[in-house]
């Protein structure tokens, strides 16, 4: 995945436990993120946010001088927020999402899981800065909504763009038929399976060298589709 441009994003990490901060920092550094700042209290976090101008905030819910939800409201930075917390209760989750959090990771978590979520959020939030996405035999330019294949620029329709974005956010992973329908047609998309198949066919014609033998956009029978991007 060619998402190197995301590694330069400034990440603010807020948690009251030093050891956890250390661990997350080490996970992030190992993954290649280089601009990380930590804070242990709401006050510190607000100070850092002012000077550091983060592009992603990872917040704990329970902090010694307040809670993550109100901290998020105070930050109001226009950048994505991910909650990382020991509170697994659904109520808390709904509250977090209701306030506009981009994701919610419940402790404990595997480094891979956390990294995947962070990458997905960053990709979604900063997709306009995205350079070309390299596929086998073609490239996608999400900003211009077009595919470049054999030097030819092929425009993507709005639905194709939505579907490819959803697939790219989860590149390398299966996205279910239902999730794709939801991405293209909104909530409760019952009965769009055939339309989806038609769109996938058209996308393949644009991105695949041999559309009848797809390599980049593969079908997982009965379940969904997977976009395989090249690079990193």
């Amino acid at each position, binding site marked *: 995945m060619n998402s190197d441009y995301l590694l330069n994003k400034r990440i603010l990490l807020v948690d009251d436990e030093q050891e956890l901060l250390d661990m997350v920092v080490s*996970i992030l550094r190992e993954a290649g993120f280089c601009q990380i700042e930590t804070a242990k209290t709401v006050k510190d976090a607000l100070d850092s946010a002012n000077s550091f101008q983060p592009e992603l905030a990872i917040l704990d819910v329970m902090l010694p001088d307040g809670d993550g939800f109100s901290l998020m409201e105070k930050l109001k930075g226009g950048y994505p927020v991910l909650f990382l917390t020991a509170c*697994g209760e659904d109520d808390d989750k709904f509250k977090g999402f209701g306030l506009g959090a981009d994701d919610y990771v419940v402790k*404990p*978590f595997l480094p891979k899981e956390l990294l995947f979520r962070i990458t997905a959020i960053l990709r979604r939030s900063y997709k306009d800065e995205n350079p070309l996405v390299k596929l086998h035999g073609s490239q996608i330019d999400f900003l211009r909504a077009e595919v470049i294949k054999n030097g030819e620029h092929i425009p993507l329709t709005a639905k194709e763009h939505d579907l490819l974005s959803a697939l790219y956010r989860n590149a390398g992973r*299966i996205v*279910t038929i239902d999730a794709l329908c939801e991405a293209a047609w909104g909530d409760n998309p019952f009965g769009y399976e055939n339309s989806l198949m038609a769109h996938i066919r058209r996308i393949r014609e644009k991105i695949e060298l041999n559309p009848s033998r797809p390599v980049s956009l593969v079908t*997982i029978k009965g*379940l969904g589709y997977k976009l395989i991007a090249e690079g990193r």
Partner: protein
Amino acid sequence: MNNLPKLIRRFTGILLLSFILLLLVNFVVLAFLMAWQSPSVASSPYNVAIQTGKAFQASENGYTLQEDISTQLKQQDVWAFVVDNDTLQIVWKTENLPDTIPTSYTLSDIADLSVGYLDGYPTYTGKTENGIVILGYPKDSFWKHTRASWNYNFFAHLPQIIFIVLTVNIVVILLIYVIANVRFLKPVKPITKGIQDLSVGEPVHIPEKGLLSDISANINRTSDILQEQRQQLKKKETARANWIAGVSHDIRTPLSMVMGYAGQLKDDANLTDEECQKAEVIVKQSKRMQNLINDLNLASKLEYDMQPINSAKQNLIAIVRQVVVDFINMDIEDRYPIEWQTDEALTVCPINADKDLLKRAVSNLIQNSINHNEQGCKIYISVTADNDYCTVIVSDDGVGETDELIEKLNKTPHYMLCDKNTTEQRHGLGLLIVKQIVSAHGGTIVITNNSYGGFLVKFTLPKSK
């Protein structure tokens, strides 16, 4: 609440019945007494007098009475005399005639004694050839109705009058009874309501006054005790659920450290394969702990009804598919391939359900197959639907379970819900949660072995309309 009118109806019915029975018995007894006490027609004094009159034989020497009548009179201690029609003098008398009886009579004397008494003796008259025979019965042997004189109309309408009087009596008595009953039952009403409320567990407070204040007080006290017990139970359950929630919360942070570092070490290129494998074991075991914590918390919440069920219309296929894909995305080693066996023509299975809980149920079933098959196994998942129900089947071709254990899994309660101390080998909470979630959604679950020799769990949920 309908008991009170029923009670009054029944009381009134019994009262009416007893009233009528009483009257009937009285009439019977009266009739019996009359029949027993009043002399038979033949031996009534009137008849005896008439017979006596006929039994006289007039001759030149006066009257002679037939022997048998004469003895009969004597036996009954009855005296008799005959007054002549012309002379109005006694012309014949028995020997036992008292001295106080006059010997001559006027017509008015005769009229008097025919309806009444002569010198205190009840007298009866009979006709003889030329006179009248008068029988005198011993004093106080009969009572005579001397001055009977009634309005004819009264007697002509006697049945109606009796009926009206009786009816009025009955109505008055009923009225008294009903009023008395209502006044008596008035304090009973709050008591019956109180007992009804008590039975459904509502708090009860009845005013403690009147005839039944003792009972009211007892009911109030019972209610207080019940409420207190309920509150304590609730408190205990809440405390237990909170305790479990607290413990699982506190374990999460240290466990994330274990998992985080072990996860890093697992992929560390500087370590030997053996070391990486050790790290992987740590990761795997911490994941187990993570599952256990999640399960423990949810199981206790479901058990104590503290887990809100946020039902909404969902597509069961989409839910199951998402869980399957999450597992496939996670299982990089491909040791547990999942085969999606749902008919592709079936795209929508509408149900009313809590999406997160159902996801949890399906993912627990898949996790269960993984946990029980260290060597790896293939997992088969299908969703089917008929008119009213949707069915999800999760099975594997792994080691399966003994029939005995399957029987147990289907029938006996989980050790967490067992009220006895159990030393039985304890199994995970995964299946318990699936059972709880399925039953919270009004579904059924069957656990069995399948044709691959592995484990199979099938749950069925009602389709939403």
